[in-house]
């Protein structure tokens, strides 16, 4: 993902100006440092993902020099649009690029050593600078957002596409007591940007709101002190701004630049935080669509309906982190899909496992081969809405249900005795070493053991109810469909049930709002009618309730 996040400001003296921007560098492309992020490279992504090298450390040091040897003209020294750093000792995780003068921050991605995030006043690359500058001017002095504060998206192929979130903050010294700022997110891929819109807007909004509330507090404080000075009588109309005559007021500040954000917000490490936020946004935004994309891949493996192919190409990290080829070569040690799992476990164990899981009990998968455990987890997690599962794939110790409801444990880990065994279902699964892995009948290649949890086996009536979740699911699995269609069918099945859950949620909240306790009896008959109508077996209500709980909190 090529993107650059920046904070821009409509400066009282200089007009629109860039204050600070953060961009990600992928270390596996040496000579492309500038090209990679240069928007002028158009839709073509840096195809350097495949040739990732291990020599990233030296490259990093190379880049350090690069960022110092810049031929950018000295930025205007207007205080209101300058960015400044706190004293060095207060910096912990961000490392300053520090040579003759401080130019910015560099943050290394701990999870991915190939990526660094650099925060500077301007991007180093000329073309990129032009694009950022253009975005800045346009977002602050051309584009208009309904309500004046909020997001807009604009751009073209030449200068890239920009999502700009405009906001104003209070400043008692500014004209009209407020100043305009905007976060801009510049990238070449319009589709990606539009896809990221909800994410980016929510993050920018949160960031802007926090800045605004901070500024508001200070604004109130400053006003209060000014009012005290003015005896309070003077303030009926002219407000706290004019202890002197209008002319003096104008004269006094006409040629004084306004305070920088650091002073305005009185937070010394404002730009450090901003950089951290920007870096996180860049990273998270990159991760976000990547994940979605891979979900698609498992769902429609090898199918051509790949709408987001460009997105895949854009990000070398994606190919590095999750090489798809991995899955193919490991085929023999993993369980491919739900049907395979069903075949391995057999009806009863499978039933119990699924039932416990979809009702919200914790599933603990233990095994000596983490790959198998992982594959079981990845199969099972698709059975419920993504909000309903929190996963820990490979742990050495037991984690409580509040932390995750699917837990992958290694074989030696023990379940503590004080854990409530009725809310927990333990599956031990591993490859049977006695049998040959080449045995084509995969069903025999595993040994397994299921413990704890609840079971409905004894209740014949419920057990055989045709419309229950579990029986419907098994019905699908028995259909003997090709695996792709099967996967699609299961996904649709899941969607059906989550839509039932949503309907039920709406029903409950509605009836809760309308009637009090007095109507409880009537409500319950109503509820029975309703679940009958949307075709839920009464015994599946725990499932629905669990899903509702997750959907609500999500």
């Amino acid at each position, binding site marked *: 993902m090529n993107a650059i996040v920046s904070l821009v400001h409509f400066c*009282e*003296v*200089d007009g629109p100006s860039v204050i600070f921007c953060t961009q990600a560098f992928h270390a596996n492309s040496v000579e492309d440092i500038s090209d990679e992020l240069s928007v002028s490279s158009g839709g073509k992504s840096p195809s350097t993902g495949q040739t990732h090298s291990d020599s990233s450390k030296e490259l990093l040091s190379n880049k350090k020099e690069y960022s110092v040897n810049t031929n950018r003209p000295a930025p205007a020294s207007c205080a209101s649009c300058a960015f400044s750093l706190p004293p060095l000792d207060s910096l912990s995780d961000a490392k300053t690029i520090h040579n003759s003068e401080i130019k910015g921050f560099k943050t290394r991605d701990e999870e991915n050593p190939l990526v660094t995030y650099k925060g500077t006043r301007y991007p180093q690359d000329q073309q990129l600078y032009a694009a950022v500058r*253009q975005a800045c001017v346009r977002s*602050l002095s051309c584009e*208009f957002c309904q309500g004046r504060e909020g997001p807009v998206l604009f751009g073209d192929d030449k200068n890239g596409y920009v999502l700009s979130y405009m906001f104003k903050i209070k400043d008692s010294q*500014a004209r009209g007591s407020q100043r*305009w700022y905007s976060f801009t997110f510049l990238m070449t891929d319009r589709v990606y940007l539009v896809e990221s819109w909800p994410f980016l807007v929510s993050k920018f909004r949160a960031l802007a709101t926090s800045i605004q509330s901070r500024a508001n507090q200070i604004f109130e404080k400053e006003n209060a002190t000014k009012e005290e000075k003015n005896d309070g009588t003077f303030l009926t109309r002219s407000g706290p701004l004019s202890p002197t005559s209008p*002319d003096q007021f104008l004269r006094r500040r006409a040629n004084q630049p306004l305070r920088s954000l650091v002073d305005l917000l009185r937070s010394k490490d404002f730009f450090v935080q901003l950089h951290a936020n920007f870096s996180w946004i860049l990273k998270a935004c990159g991760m976000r669509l990547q994940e979605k994309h891979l979900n698609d891949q498992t769902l429609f493996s090898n199918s051509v309906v790949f709408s987001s192919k460009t997105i895949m190409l854009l990000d070398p990290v994606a190919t590095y982190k999750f090489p798809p080829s991995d899955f193919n070569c490991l085929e023999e040690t993993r369980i491919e899909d739900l049907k395979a799992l069903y075949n391995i476990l057999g009806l009863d164990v499978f039933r119990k496992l699924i039932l416990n899981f979809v009702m919200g009990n914790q599933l603990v998968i233990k095994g000596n081969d983490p790959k198998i455990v992982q594959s079981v987890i990845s199969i099972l997690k698709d059975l419920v809405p993504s909000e309903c599962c929190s996963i820990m794939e490979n742990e050495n110790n037991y984690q409580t249900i509040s932390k995750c409801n699917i837990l992958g444990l290694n074989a030696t880990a023990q379940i503590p005795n004080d854990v409530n065994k009725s809310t927990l279902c333990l599956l031990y699964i591993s490859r049977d070493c006695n049998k040959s892995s080449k045995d084509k009948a995969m069903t025999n290649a595993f040994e397994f053991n299921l413990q704890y949890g609840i079971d409905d086996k004894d209740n014949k009536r419920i057990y055989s109810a045709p419309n229950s979740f579990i029986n419907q699911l098994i019905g699908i699995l028995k259909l003997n469909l090709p695996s792709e269609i099967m996967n699609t069918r299961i996904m649709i099945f899941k969607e059906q049930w989550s839509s039932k859950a949503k309907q039920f949620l709406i029903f409950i909240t509605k009836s809760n709002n309308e009637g009090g306790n007095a109507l409880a009896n009537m409500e319950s008959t109503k509820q029975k009618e309703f679940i009958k109508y949307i075709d839920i077996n009464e015994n599946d209500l725990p499932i629905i309730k669990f899903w509702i709980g997750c959907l609500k909190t999500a």
Partner: protein
Amino acid sequence: MSHSEDEYSLHTSHIGNDVSEDPVQDHRPRLLIMGLRRSGKSSIQKVVFHKMAANETLFLESTNKIIKENITSFIDFQVWDFPGQIDYFDTATYDSDVIFGEYGALIFVIDAQDDYIEALNRLHQTVLRAHEKNKNLTFEVFIHKVDALSDEFKIDTQRDIQQRTTDELADVGLENVPLSFYLTSIYDHSIFEAFSKVIQKLIPQLPTLENLLNILCANSGIEKAFLFDVNSKIYIATDSSPVDMQTYEICSDMIDVIIDISEIYGRTTSFHQINDELYGDDQTQVETNGKAGNYGTTTDTANDAASLIKLNNGMVLCLRGVNRFLALVCLLRSDNFEKHGLIDYNFQCFKQAIAEVFELKRRSAERLRHEGMRLSGDVNEGG
């Protein structure tokens, strides 16, 4: 006069390719208000077109984008308020052909209380480049914020600025570019007067209107007559006798008085529809520029607003509504006001003549619109 703030539409954002659907609207004359930051552009615009109190303008925030405003009145025009910080001649970012290409006037505001050398440089650049883009643009220089300057200093400043500007323009061979200079301040009527003169240049019917006013004055014993735009208090025409600032002020104050009174007593808030008859000579004392006077308002129908204020010095102020936007305010001696009938008759004739003048304009506009529609229809068929 109705204001439609363009600020809240997407229109503003498409500076690059501003294609209006309505050809008539697109060819409205433009008033481009430019100048350095903090020179008072937005204040002028707010005071003149939004009736903002002058001391409230202190709290305006700085303008960060071009604020376009459509003024629909006797003539339709647009006011564009530019942010002072941005160079709109930068061809990489802005399409200056679109911005400066239309018929209109460029108002350049100079802060007279500040050091104006920088402003003059900018003015010079602006005139140079805007003239290059559009030869028909007229340039008006507002030497602004002169309220704090002494009269002598005002004149000196104006002379100095005028001298420097014309010299510099002469150096680059632009002697014949029409530049007008005005001393303005939002704290008195000078800004309205200056705007009046700017807008008068944009009215093609001006000679006709002036001629009509001359005839009216000569035949009714009127000392001075102004044709006002009621909402902005800009006068769009006056007779050919010299304009005395005090006369202008008192006439424009009269409009305020009438609007205020009609807001209180009128059946609707509109000044044009005063149906209540007011006999309150003794009850209401109106202070206008220190002269106490009494007034009476009598009107019957919408465009027949009329009012009289007798001044202490033997003069009579007389207001008559002309149409939705315009009102005629005249100053005449009370001796001449004896002949009520004659004056009323003359008013009627004048009103009719004005109506005819603007009818012609309306028709041509309509024709233009039809042509435009046909044109766009053709395009639709073709596409």
